[in-house]
């Protein structure tokens, strides 16, 4: 290969890690702005803490491995910090984002060898770690500011914030209420649902920007969201009075965010386009299953981690056809000839 003479014209690509990460950060902006508009400045404080602890951890590892600190400039630690920060509840105590940021970088990324080596999405690994370790602090969300008297500028005297259940939490704890009774009760503030829906739309906007910039492929989020709708509708049809309606799967929780920003992680996901679609399909089925039958109200982080486990196997069975061959050599029959 080195002997191959290449002559001009060359197509130049500006896709460096740094550029991609900058675009991802840019695409996160609308979601972050809406989140902090609805849930107060806690979101921004969380982001500040996750990002600074993530950068600190990255710097520490660079020191330990005697590498140049210039690695910090590729923004990847910052992106991990942002992706983790937006998942955390705005009322979380300060040590939750700090532990999360440190865990994401140290255990999620650098224990496995650093950028490009991590089998799991670091942000989701840290989120799952926090959710399992500190279930109480991780499931209290403040009410969005549209609810009377909960705006963070003028909360009720003597209180820090009013908290309420997120849509999936409320549904998980609705007990024996039928669906229409649930909607008539005050277990779920309509403002909470409006807030999460508008935030989901903001993530969608950011995701569309990433697709337009060709940083992510549109097939993956589409497969994931369609799986949520179709499989969600099937499961909902089994028991319409107790299972989550499919539209709520998209409007509540982190589904849209995960579709565009988490599942599209190029390192911990599958590689080929077909593989990515299988990856998204599996994640969607897992999300619905966990939300319907699991013990946690939301299962996006766990689904992503489980599919990260499966990504090597998916890659093994979805190898693309090599140029010059009639068929793709994938699965057991390939005998590993294209390693």
């Amino acid at each position, binding site marked *: 290969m080195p002997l191959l003479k290449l002559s001009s014209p060359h197509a130049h690509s500006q896709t460096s890690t740094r550029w991609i990460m900058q675009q991802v950060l840019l695409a996160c902006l609308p979601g972050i702005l809406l989140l902090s508009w609805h849930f107060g400045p806690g979101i921004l404080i969380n982001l500040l803490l996750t990002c600074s602890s993530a950068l600190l951890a990255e710097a520490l590892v660079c020191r330990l491995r005697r590498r140049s600190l210039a690695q910090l400039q590729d923004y990847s630690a910052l992106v991990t910090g942002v992706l983790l920060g937006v998942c955390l509840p705005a009322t979380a105590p300060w040590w939750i984002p700090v532990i999360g940021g440190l865990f994401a970088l140290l*255990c999620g990324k650098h224990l496995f060898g650093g950028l490009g080596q991590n089998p799991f999405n670091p942000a989701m690994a840290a989120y799952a*770690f926090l959710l*399992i*370790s*500190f*279930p109480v602090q991780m499931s209290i969300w403040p009410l969005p500011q549209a609810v009377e008297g909960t705006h963070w500028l003028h909360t009720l005297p003597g209180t820090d914030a009013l908290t309420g259940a997120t849509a999936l939490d409320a549904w998980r704890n609705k007990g024996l209420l039928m669906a229409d009774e649930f909607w008539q009760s005050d277990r779920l503030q309509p403002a909470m649902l409006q807030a999460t829906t508008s935030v989901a739309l903001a993530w969608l906007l950011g995701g569309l920007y990433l697709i337009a910039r060709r940083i992510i492929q549109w097939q993956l989020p589409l497969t994931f969201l369609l799986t949520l709708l179709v499989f969600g509708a099937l499961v909902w049809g089994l028991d319409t009075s107790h299972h989550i309606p499919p539209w709520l799967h998209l409007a509540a929780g982190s589904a849209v965010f995960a579709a565009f920003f988490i599942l599209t992680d190029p390192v911990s996901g599958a590689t080929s386009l077909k593989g990515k679609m299988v990856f998204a399909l599996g994640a969607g089925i897992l999300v619905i299953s966990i939300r319907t039958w699991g013990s946690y109200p939301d299962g996006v982080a766990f689904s992503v981690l489980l599919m990260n486990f499966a990504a090597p196997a998916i890659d093994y069975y979805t190898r693309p056809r090599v140029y010059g061959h009639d068929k793709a050599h994938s699965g057991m029959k390939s005998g590993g000839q294209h390693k």
Partner: protein
Amino acid sequence: MSTTAPSQTAPSQTTVSQTAPALASSPPASSAVSQANYGKISADGLWHNNPALVQLLGLCPLLAVTGTVVNSLGLAAATLLVLLGSSLSVSIIRNHVASSVRLPAFVMIIASFVTCAELLMQAFTYELYQILGIFIPLIVTNCAILGRADAFASKNPPLPALVDALMVGLGFAAVLVLLGAFREILGQGTLFSGMELLFGPAAAQWQITFFSDFQVLILLLPPGAFFGMGLIIALKNLIDQQLKQRAKPQPVATEKASRRVRLTPSA
């Protein structure tokens, strides 16, 4: 499972099958091992061939019940007792059991000792027995025990077999207790809590509280055991690396004569 065990078990099994017909008449290995090097047996059991850190055997109870030091100690004591008894018995009957039926025989012996340990714990430390639950009967499936019976005790006289069992058992116990302490301190902020379950009411005051009102649930759950285990194995490898580097300067002088570069990784 035996494939994960380096060096020790695999070659030994071949020697057993080769020498099997001769076993009944004269034990071939016993003369060589009669001057057994107890220092080497101890170093292997405790460090170089540690069942938990190197052979990675017996991980199921190791990961499941090491939430606190007292749980670890309870399991370690039971395992040590079974290991001592089974190694001694296997060594005593080693010349009277045909090689084709040796594994069932060993398992029966181990199972009897596990039953003894279970009944003893039921009698004297009933609460701890209830906490450890299924993992006491499951000691029977601990590959480290069957591994020692087959790889060492079945080829050696009783005394070396007993020393080997003691050292392997202590090596396993050390890892259990270390992991238990790690998870207890970082998981619930205490050390030596609940020791009265094992050592009587006086031990209730042994508890050291580092952080009160503190809980990191994941470290008390099985994932925490994997984190801790990984860190302990990494620590052992780091220490081994340091020892190797410290020992290096001497062989360097002798190797200077030949300029050959070693391409294969040294085993």
